[in-house]
């Protein structure tokens, strides 16, 4: 039984028909058409589906879309500035070679955003702990951790959020 709901994604209101059983990741990708959010394991283990809800990182593959009304959802597309320039975290990932196949990257970057929002100057241990819910099969994490550390410095210096 479909009902029309409003989802606030990256500051824009989308009116979408959903069935209660529709998962947020599927609604974002297929109904709204934002395919930056990836589906990995489908069971909340890999973190590829990570989006921010009211600033907090959540696993969209085990979240019901219907439960997200009235909340602010941020997907990876929401980090890019109006003029198309990359967010400092994204730029840092690019600059530091932290992207190989790119599949884990959207989830990894959003988790990073949440980490730096809470802790603008994380230690290496805190970074590792902060991204422990995001699996990467390609990079071995070293460049990712470096990229995050560098992004933290850049963002602190520029007062960026």
């Amino acid at each position, binding site marked *: 039984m479909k009902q029309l709901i409003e989802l606030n994604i990256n500051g824009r209101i989308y009116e979408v028909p959903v*069935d209660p059983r529709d998962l947020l990741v599927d609604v974002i990708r297929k109904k709204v058409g934002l395919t930056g959010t990836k589906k990995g394991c489908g069971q909340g283990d890999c973190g590829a589906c990570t989006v921010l809800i009211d600033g907090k990182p959540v696993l969209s593959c085990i979240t*019901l879309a219907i439960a997200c009304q009235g909340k602010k959802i941020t997907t990876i597309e929401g980090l890019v500035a109006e003029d198309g320039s990359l967010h400092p975290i994204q730029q840092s990932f690019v600059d530091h070679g932290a992207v190989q196949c790119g599949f884990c990257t959207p989830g990894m970057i959003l988790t990073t955003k949440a980490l730096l929002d809470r802790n603008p100057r994380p230690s290496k241990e805190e970074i590792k702990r902060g991204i*422990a819910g995001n699996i990467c099969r390609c990079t071995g994490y070293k460049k990712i951790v470096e990229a995050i550390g560098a992004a933290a410095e850049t963002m602190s210096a520029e007062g960026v959020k």
Partner: protein
Amino acid sequence: MFLNHFAYFAPKTPGEALDLASRLGNKAKILAGGTDLLIMMKEKMIKPEYLIDINDVQEFKGISYEPGKGAVIGAATKISEIEHSDLIREKYFALHKAAGELGSVQVRSMATIGGNSCHASPAAETPPPLVALGAKVVISSVSGDRELPLEEFILGNRVTALAEGELLTKFVLPEPAPGSVSRYAYIGLRDAMEIDAVNMAVNLTLEDDKRTVKDLRLVMGSVSPRPLVSVEVPGILVGREFNNELVEKAAVAASGEAKPISDIRASAEYRREVVAVLARRLLQEAFGAASTKEV
């Protein structure tokens, strides 16, 4: 992976939630964090006809504290809120530690303390520290509330004392005894996003001489179908002066009390061994902290 079709409710008040639970009974499942529920539904282990989403009921959330009385934690409080609470870190350290070890940062911002106990996995992180800290649960229904010690609420593997139509609504933690210290540790295959092979919490109070054990609770998880409260360890240490010989005796005793199974995560023998290691480590850690703590 598709979920089954179900009807979705999002009550806004406790009354609405309890009414729905009463009317729908076992045809409904409660959606709090969903981090266990949705996975079970995806694997077709359960196919509830109704989901009652309790995340909009403000009264089921939050941490409150009254000096001398203790803390009350709403069952729908997110694990991340507990992890980052200064109050929980200062007064109920073992719970703070366990909350921080649960899942990953994403899971912690979704999962709830109530869900962790209601799902009643023997390997759950928060029940052993809660039991060690003397937590009671408040179970609510349209007929009213009842209270139970948490160790009497979790009955076994995925089994709780919740009757049809009932909801777990609060955790009540007593004011910690002056000078008491609690600690938590676990062993697992990985550092995050894993299921504990063994976990353990200790709650220790010393006498004014800072050497004699006044009170001690040691609770083990993942080595029995439900949190295992040690009887022998307090028997060995309470009323005695803390020393390494007694710690050794206690570690061996704890290991003997454990009832581990062999499964994909560890063998029973390994778990038994690790129980002794964690008991030794936690007792020493707790004593070190308690003997230097200002009351």
